[in-house]
């Protein structure tokens, strides 16, 4: 039994660097939170049939997590409810003390990946309304993602067009484990609509496309799934590059979220080497893959890489470019990165500002 275990919130705001947090996970305060935006048909459908995704369990993940809800245990709101469901607690525990002046919401459990395509679309649309009603309209630091039913690309494009130009939406959100690799032409209407709207497309780790989550079948353990996001994100990103999405949509920006980033340099080197040898196969690519990556792709920083010695990660960031990384905490998840501790390395003030804020503001087109 815990008795009086919570430390007092640190009073740090005014002296701390103002930062951008490019991966915050708001959660519904109750299972019915989307009801105001769901028709009677879908409310009844959900009661009877639920919202199965392409996995065995009605609720919960295919690989049980290491902590309940994959959340920090100290992120449970004092008033009750799940971690991430209380705006006031998020403000008190995270936004205020960490001086987050720009926070991007990536709602998971939003209906994305739900197998029934119409239900999926309805839930995604409701999620977008909910983000405005419960979050962005109440705290102007928070910005929303257009959550889309990505397996239905045309419906996704329509949802993007609906929100394009709305001041609260800064990106489109898809999940990384899609039914087919993300560069496949069936997803191109999403990129078209996003590029036209000037919205980056964020690819966030997770989702269930329906196939095994590795190229060699299903692993046994949660730790393998977590390590494996690096592989599935590489596969999706390689597809986007090699299929020519950036040639077709030169204004498109992609943000890889919660995928890790240290894999990026060797990934780029391999793509370049392979493309060079096999160039005749991809005449639609006018430039080496690494150039597309340098112009169109950014990575969020969480989970932060922790080599020993820590300075090795500076080599990695040097290879990627200090303009490629967008700081993120993944609040309220367990593998949260505290901004004051995420990069305990000797870097220049310019590098620090880029990493913690300026890159994000540039990518999302926000004036400081």
């Amino acid at each position, binding site marked *: 039994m815990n008795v009086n275990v919570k430390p007092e919130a640190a009073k740090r705001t005014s002296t701390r660097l103002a930062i951008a947090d490019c991966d915050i996970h708001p959660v519904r305060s109750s299972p019915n939170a989307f009801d105001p935006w769901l028709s009677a048909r879908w409310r009844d459908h959900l009661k009877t049939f639920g919202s199965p995704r392409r996995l065995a369990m009605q609720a919960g993940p295919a690989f049980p997590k290491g902590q309940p809800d994959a959340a920090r245990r100290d992120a449970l709101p004092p008033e009750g409810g799940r971690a991430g469901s209380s705006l006031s607690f998020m403000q008190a525990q995270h936004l205020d003390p960490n001086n987050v002046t720009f926070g991007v919401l990536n709602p998971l459990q939003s209906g994305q990946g739900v197998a029934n395509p119409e239900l999926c679309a309805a839930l995604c649309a409701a999620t977008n309304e909910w983000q405005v009603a419960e979050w962005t309209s109440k705290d102007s630091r928070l910005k929303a993602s257009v959550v889309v039913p990505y397996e239905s690309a045309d419906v996704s494009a329509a949802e993007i067009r609906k929100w394009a130009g709305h001041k609260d939406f800064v990106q489109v959100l898809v999940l990384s484990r899609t039914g087919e*690799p993300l560069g496949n032409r069936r997803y191109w209407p999403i990129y078209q609509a996003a590029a036209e709207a000037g919205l980056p497309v964020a690819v966030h780790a997770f989702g269930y496309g329906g196939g095994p989550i590795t190229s060699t079948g299903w692993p046994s353990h949660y730790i393998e799934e977590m390590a494996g996001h690096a592989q599935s994100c590489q596969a999706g990103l390689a597809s986007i590059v090699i299929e020519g999405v950036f040639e077709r949509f030169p204004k498109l920006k992609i943000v890889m979220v919660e995928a890790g980033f240290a894999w990026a340099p060797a990934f780029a080197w391999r793509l370049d080497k392979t493309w060079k040898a096999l160039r005749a196969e991809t005449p639609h690519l006018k430039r080496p893959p690494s150039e597309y990556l340098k112009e169109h792709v950014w990575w969020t920083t969480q989970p932060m890489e922790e080599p020993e010695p820590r300075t090795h990660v500076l080599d990695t960031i040097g290879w990627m470019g200090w303009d490629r990384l967008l700081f993120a905490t993944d609040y309220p998840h367990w593998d949260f990165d505290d901004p004051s501790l995420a990069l305990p390395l000797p870097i220049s003030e310019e590098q620090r500002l880029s990493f913690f804020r300026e890159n994000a503001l540039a990518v999302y087109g926000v004036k400081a």
Partner: protein
Amino acid sequence: MIEAGAIDCDVHPTVPSLEALVPYMSEHWQDMVKTRGLDELVSISYPANSPITARADWRPAKGKPAGTLEQMRTECLDPFKTSIAICNCLYGAQLLFSEDMGSAFASAVNDWIAKEWLDREPRLRGSIVVQTQNVEMAVEEIERCAKNPRFVQVLLLASGDHPLGKRFYWPIYAAAERHGLTVGIHAGSNYHNPPTAVGWPSYYTEDYAAQAQAFQTQLTSLICEGVFSSYPKLKVVLLESGWTWLPAHLWRLSKYWHGLRMEIPWVDRSPMEIVKTNVRLSLQPTDAPPDPASLEKIIEHMQSDEILLFSTDYPHGQFEGMEVLPQGLPKSLVRKIMIDNPRATYARLLETVT
């Protein structure tokens, strides 16, 4: 400068045709090949005429690249002054869904390698090709071929039916450890699952690039499932993986192990430590950074000079001319990579290496 006497850990003798394997099959299977009109088992991992499948100057006017011993001698063993080369035959016996047919073909490939290559050229060693759907039959084949001291390794593919760490496969590792055979995991898939974590790619370029992720997945699986805890003497070699992805992968896996140790409590050392003692990677291809100084940094990130093993990947087209050692490879490591590390890895070489 290439060291004379190097050990080349990855060369690919090419089966000229199914016809060449038929003499090594039982009467029953010989009949099946003929009666059913079986096709060649050539994997899409290496499209026949693609530039990676064979370097242009290693393509003969007639016949297959690396199709004869004469080709391998003049194009590979002699010019690179190789003392020993390990043959990894990529004929697609593993592609089949029938475990019986797969086993029959794998046996034929192994007998063909032994007779046509190992017996005729003292510099050659071989890997035992097995299908992996039926592990009992795979172990039988390993036991059978292990009697021939010229076989030094069991050959598996980077993507198969299940992640290779799963206990289902452990009898293979037990047999390999028992006989002092390494386990070689080679780029390619049996395509029993889509070849990427997110489905089937449209282009060969994607498929080939995706091999690096397959190796990452297998390394995670072997470590997390505890293969090296249960078989501490086992050496696993990742062949044709590109290798520069290794440090970043281990940073991530080690970080998660710290927080999720309780899920896999049999893993009692950091993944980085396990790789240092049990896992090796072949040199070609090297997915190299554009500047040579950065290659040295990546090697520094690996925190061990015992991990890389020399290979040409002959006849695959990975480098020009004699430029098999990537630019930026520290000279102090050349002898280790070309001779010492392979000797330390392949226990069965000790019997025959001079």
